[in-house]
């Protein structure tokens, strides 16, 4: 349970973030602002993957696939009606005549991604071990192929461009907050403890009455939902989406963020996502001037190797900073109050 002062800290941090965005939008140019948007999207991706991989111990690589599902769903729903008939001839009439505003479109995109993860999760999560990694790897390919071949709905390999620029920092920040809230709430709750128990020892968890399949599928779906939303935000930040937008390399980048931050630590994923995505952007001018591309990835890989050698549990391990964790402050009183 949280103390009042801890709640105030959370509210304070959220307000400080809002203030920061207010200042950024006032003083920074559009290029920097779009980079900030990407940083926020990476935070959503890393923290949500941490719920699946870090809390529940499911090694999923499926985030790009779920982003693609969410991104395309959202893009089709917000696509201007007058251009729909020409670009997307295969849409059924009721869909061709619909144009949703951003928030419901994002939600539906996320729900579709969660539905996709349910279809994968139900058969695969019955198995033990790392089958999920292989299966989700396959899903990235399957989703790409499907999108490429469903030309009437997705415009095939050309992708959808000229999407309305709906994503701004406020939208990203709202979803960052929702993601952090979900992660935090789950981690410090009975439901979250059942997820952690599965990660630590699935047989013991099973023998304590925890339904492994159900809990795992739920963990995968939460991650997929947020990835789907992130895909929608991404599409409307870049204002274009193609089957190749969300590739395996992206899955790799997000996994690295989770591992380096410490799988199981929300704070760790948050910081790792911020640092890595800013680092990659920082190397971009260098790459362009030297005409050597991929320096960012090399540095990313080097950091991963060093972390795996010297601090395999990641920067934060599985824990959060003590001053943010519930119950730590009054550890001597028997039953913690509210």
């Amino acid at each position, binding site marked *: *349970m949280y103390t009042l002062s801890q709640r105030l800290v959370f509210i304070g941090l959220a307000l400080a973030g809002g203030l920061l965005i207010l200042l950024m939008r006032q003083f920074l140019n559009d290029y920097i602002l779009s980079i900030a948007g990407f940083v926020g999207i990476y935070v959503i991706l890393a923290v949500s993957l941490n719920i699946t991989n870090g809390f529940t111990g499911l090694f999923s690589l499926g985030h790009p696939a779920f982003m693609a599902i969410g991104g395309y769903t959202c893009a089709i729903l917000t696509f201007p009606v007058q251009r729909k008939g020409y670009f997307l001839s295969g849409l059924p009439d009721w869909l061709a005549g619909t144009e949703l505003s951003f928030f419901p479109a994002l939600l539906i995109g996320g729900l579709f991604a969660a539905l996709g993860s349910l279809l994968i999760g139900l058969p695969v999560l019955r198995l033990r071990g790392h089958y999920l990694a292989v299966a989700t790897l396959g899903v990235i390919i399957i989703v790409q192929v499907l999108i490429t071949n469903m030309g009437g709905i997705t415009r095939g390999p050309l992708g959808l461009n000229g999407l309305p620029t709906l994503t701004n920092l406020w939208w990203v920040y709202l979803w960052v907050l929702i993601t952090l809230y*979900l992660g935090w*709430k*789950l981690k410090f*709750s*009975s*439901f*979250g*403890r*059942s997820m*952690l*128990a599965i990660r*630590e*020892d699935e*047989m*013991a*968890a*099973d*023998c*304590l*009455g*925890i*339904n*492994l399949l159900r809990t795992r599928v*739920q963990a995968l779906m*939460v991650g997929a939902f947020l990835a789907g939303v992130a895909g929608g935000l991404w599409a409307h930040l870049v204002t274009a989406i193609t089957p190749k937008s969300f590739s395996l390399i992206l899955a790799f980048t997000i996994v690295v963020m989770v591992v380096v931050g410490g799988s*199981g630590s929300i704070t760790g994923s948050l910081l790792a996502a911020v640092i890595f995505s800013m680092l990659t952007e920082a190397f971009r001018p260098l790459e362009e001037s030297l005409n050597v591309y991929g320096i960012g990835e090399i540095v990313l890989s080097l950091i991963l190797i060093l972390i795996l050698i010297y601090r395999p549990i990641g920067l934060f391990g*599985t824990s959060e900073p003590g001053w943010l964790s519930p119950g730590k402050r009054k*550890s001597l009183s*028997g*039953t*913690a109050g*509210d």
Partner: protein
Amino acid sequence: MTGSNTLQSELLSVEHLYKSFGGIQALTDYGLSLNQGELFGLIGPNGAGKTTVFNLLSGVLHPSSGRILFSGRDISSNRPYQNARLGLSRTFQNIRLFGDLTVEDNIKAAFHMPLGTHFWSTVLHLPGFMRSEREIARQAAECLHLLELAPYRQEKARNLPFGLQRRVEIARALASSPRLLLLDEPAAGMNPHETEDLMETIQSIHARYQLTICLVEHDMNVVMGICPRIQVLDQGRVLMEGSPQEIQNDPRVIKAYLGAPREECHAEN
């Protein structure tokens, strides 16, 4: 010492249970009957099939044939979590704690099944969620206190010494509010002093909750002192069942343990 004579209703009944792993017959025509409130001992030399019995009872393994009835209900094809929900709780021979979680969180995780809330009420912070978290915290504190684990509640489970880890595991099994508690070699790897302590704890739990407990032990002397009724298992078959005195004096038991001459040698360790 025990209240086994007050209620003679049968809680668990196992009939003609067979289990084979490939060509190896691990259990042959196994039978067991446990009464409500009994403290029962299951002993046998290494490799006799004791842990296999527990794995079948808890649903970790499924029998090749035969029936397991738990308070009249056939549970032989249940998954472990289903058995746990019916009130069957167990510990493991090679301790399986949630190593990275604190002692307190290990116990709280066990309270999830009887008391915890699920996804939506957690995420939406419904009133039921706060109530359940408060109740879990209260009962976990009580459970920790009862097993004298309160001083270690913020320690990570994996950092505790062996004897305490065992204690945490028993506390965790108790937290899932079982009707039948299966303890798999609780004294394995403990020194005589720790063993004695543990046996006292088991007896006090048994008396306090009127709980039915089935205890697997490799070391005969451990169970002799506390279990009024004992079953001996050897090479997957029930050798005999009876009071400690009857067991101690039976030549077949002595033979099984001390390895009197026989054609097949079974591994001594």
